[in-house]
């Protein structure tokens, strides 16, 4: 792999020696403090040195008199943060969307929720908040109380007709049978070909990031678990890992292995759900019913290990809440063996079924350069030849000790993305069996203090849909100061806007489902 041995800190040091301040070991591998627009120079240097530089998230902070803007960047072998600050009475900062186009959504969100103005942004406007929101009120600022905001109806807007008579705008959503959750996509079509897609997200915005600031850390574990119903364990795990980084607690080894088992069970049921849902979108209801029939034993396993089919609530700061009983292990192994024996049938269907291949092959092609520029994550990236997987790049929990393969396909179409997920199902089964066989003895939990000293930490994990990023800032009380979540679907939607152009309108549902959208995650 080219560029995998580049020491990105050296590159930045050599190019911008005295203009920036590098703090090693903070917020990832290093935190780079910049001001007066130098963040663009740092980014340009990084992009030129390493092609896999991508924006993971942009966090906005309310620091009293200033607003902090943190750019979290990932490269092939490092994870850094660039710090910048702008004063509250003139919160202007220059955009980075010309250097890294995938930062469009991230900047829009910080602008919407905190009021930072990104100069040069291609399409400013409301993103997560509704048009009914009062002007000048930014909910994540500390002086805004959530129950004192009054909504006013927006001024009436005349409907703008497109100039060309043949060009028709079709609105997909907010309520639509193709979407599981409400979002609006205004698709401009010319005949049957798509020319432009304009998204409007924010229909399921519940203000969870603000809600975490008024609940204790212990209660927040359950709150962030409910950001998403499908990948709930991963959210809880990432949050407790971040808090444990601030507390500098060491989790016992048995807890690490038990966490891996819970996370991989979550990944299994999520991938089976997507594979079935994709079948439904192309009209293949039989495949959908078969996949969901095979998903039911996994839900029963999750119920066996955690007491509930969906929200497992297993994670807590300092370990896991319950142990794995030895009497349950034979049932877990039998169910996983059953699932493994069913996979060759599905692989053959994907290889040989003519109508499925006609709908999925060469549909929604995402080329490798586009995948790198748009900062996509997860199976969408791995289906286009970009081999990023947090479990391999920066192992967390017990993943450093468990052998497994990273699945990469290069064609970049819907069919490859689905195949990535199907192969990952097999890898997850292998990981769970290895973890159960090598489960260390000892305690599964240590006691953690309820008051967290002041500090901040970042953490990223591999959710079923991609890289999930958490940033937690604490201020010495039982309530966190700021929790920032960047979910994988948030980073993947710009890829859909790119792949849908030039395709048939009938290809939009399978194309869309192949990036596995989860809008509850996106909107929080």
């Amino acid at each position, binding site marked *: 792999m080219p560029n995998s041995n580049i020491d990105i800190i050296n590159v930045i040091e050599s190019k911008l020696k005295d203009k920036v301040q590098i703090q090693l070991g903070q917020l990832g591998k290093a935190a780079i403090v910049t001001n007066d627009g130098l963040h663009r120079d740092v980014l340009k240097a990084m992009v030129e040195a390493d092609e896999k530089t991508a924006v993971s998230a942009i966090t906005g902070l309310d620091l009293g008199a200033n607003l902090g803007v943190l750019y979290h960047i990932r490269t092939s072998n490092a994870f850094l943060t660039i710090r910048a600050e702008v004063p509250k009475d003139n919160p202007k900062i220059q955009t980075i969307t010309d250097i890294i186009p995938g930062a469009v959504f991230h900047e829009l969100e910080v602008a919407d929720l905190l009021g930072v103005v990104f100069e040069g942004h291609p399409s400013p406007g409301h993103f997560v908040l509704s048009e009914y929101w009062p002007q000048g009120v930014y909910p994540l600022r500390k002086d805004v109380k959530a129950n004192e905001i009054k909504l006013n109806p927006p001024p009436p807007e005349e409907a703008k007709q497109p100039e060309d008579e043949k060009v028709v705008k079709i609105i997909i959503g907010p309520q639509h*049978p*193709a979407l599981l959750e409400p979002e609006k996509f205004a698709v401009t079509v010319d005949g049957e070909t798509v020319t432009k897609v304009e998204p409007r997200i924010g229909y399921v915005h519940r203000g969870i990031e603000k809600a975490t600031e008024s609940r204790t850390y212990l209660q927040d574990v359950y709150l962030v678990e409910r950001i998403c119903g499908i990948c709930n364990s991963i959210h809880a795990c990432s949050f407790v890992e971040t808090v444990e980084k601030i507390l500098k607690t060491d989790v016992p080894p048995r807890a690490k292995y038990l966490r891996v088992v819970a996370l991989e069970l979550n990944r299994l049921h999520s991938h089976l759900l997507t594979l079935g849902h994709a079948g439904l979108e192309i009209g293949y209801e039989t495949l959908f019913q078969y996949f969901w029939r095979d998903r039911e034993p996994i839900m029963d396993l999750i119920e066996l290990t955690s007491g509930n089919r969906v929200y497992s609530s297993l994670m807590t700061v300092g370990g896991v809440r319950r142990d794995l009983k030895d009497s349950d292990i034979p049932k877990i192994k039998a169910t996983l063996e059953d699932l493994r024996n069913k996979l060759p049938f599905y692989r053959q269907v994907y290889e040989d079924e003519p*109508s499925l291949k006609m709908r999925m092959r060469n549909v929604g092609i995402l080329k490798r350069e586009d995948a790198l520029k748009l900062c996509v994550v997860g199976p969408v990236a791995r289906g286009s030849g970009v081999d990023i997987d947090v479990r391999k790049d920066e192992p967390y929990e017990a993943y450093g000790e468990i052998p497994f393969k990273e699945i990469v396909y290069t064609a970049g179409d819907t069919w490859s993305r689905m195949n990535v997920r199907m192969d990952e199902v097999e890898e997850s089964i292998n990981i769970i069996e290895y973890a159960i066989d090598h489960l260390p003895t000892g305690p599964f939990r240590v006691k953690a203090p309820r008051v967290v000293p002041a500090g901040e930490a970042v953490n990223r994990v591999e959710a079923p849909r991609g890289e999930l990023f958490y940033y937690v800032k604490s201020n010495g009380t039982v309530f966190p100061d700021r929790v920032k979540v960047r979910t994988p679907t948030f980073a993947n939607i710009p890829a859909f806007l790119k792949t849908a152009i030039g395709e048939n309108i*009938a290809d939009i549902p399978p194309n869309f489902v192949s990036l596995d959208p989860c809008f509850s995650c996106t909107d929080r």
Partner: protein
Amino acid sequence: MIDFDLIFRILVFPGFTFILLLTLFCDWVERKIEARIQNRVGPMVAGPAGILQPLADFIKLLTKEDIEPRDAKKTVFKFAPLLAFTIMVFATCFLPIDGSSVLSVSGFNGDLIVILAFVTIANFLLFLSGWASCNPYGAIGSARVLTQFLGYDIPLFLLALTPAFIAGSLSIAVIASSQVIPFIILAPWAFVLFIITMQAELEKDPFDIPHADSEVVGGLETEYTGGKLAFLHLTRDVQIVFGSALVVELFLGGPYGPVLFGFSVFWYSLWFVLKLLAVVIITEYITTVFARLRIDQVLSANWKIILPAAVLSLMLTVALVTWIYPMVV
């Protein structure tokens, strides 16, 4: 003189009531077969083994509120579904069900073409009903209905001519009764192609695109509620029964089969229903096993594959009938 026998034949058996009950029964069979293939149970609560489920769905729809959009074309919106249903039932009445058709004197030379024309008119009325609802999804759905059935009508006519050619007549009654050896054995290629074309005419998977609810919400049914939606669904079900009955008449020997004892009317109806169920099961199997094709794939399949195959099939049948079969049969 009031001909009670004729009125009975038109209204009860084998006319209107019988066709309606047969439609509801075939709907139940379809849903059960689809459910069993998908490893589920299907309807199981309404009536024994769920057999009253289609009737329950129909009655439920009749009790719902009937909303009309303000901008819809009122007359067409109201009457197109009902008219389509009427025409389909009328077309089904031409098929011999118990040995002779509903109006026993209605069979004439050429009624095969007439009932295929009726099907086209009914499909066109369905297109109009979607078009009149003044909704972008309805417009797209009904445009797809039109493109699909107009395209597939041509091979349908050509393939329907094959058994007519073997039997030497364009009257359905004559075709059905002249099948000493069922035409499925004499011209199996035509049977396979006819089943595929019938799938496209009936808008079932893999040619399901006008009803694709993941893209066009409801297609032409989007703005319909209440009683009118009930009639649209019923029209679709009667179309399926009609299509399968046509296959039975043209290729499987119609209602004619061995009469073991008693009334021939009873046995002819029984054979008809059994053969109908066999065809319904085959088409439902094809529906469940395939995914849904895109509209451009459907159309290119028609013009590039099905239509040339239909022409070739007709030529092959003509050659066989003229030269080979008189030497063998």
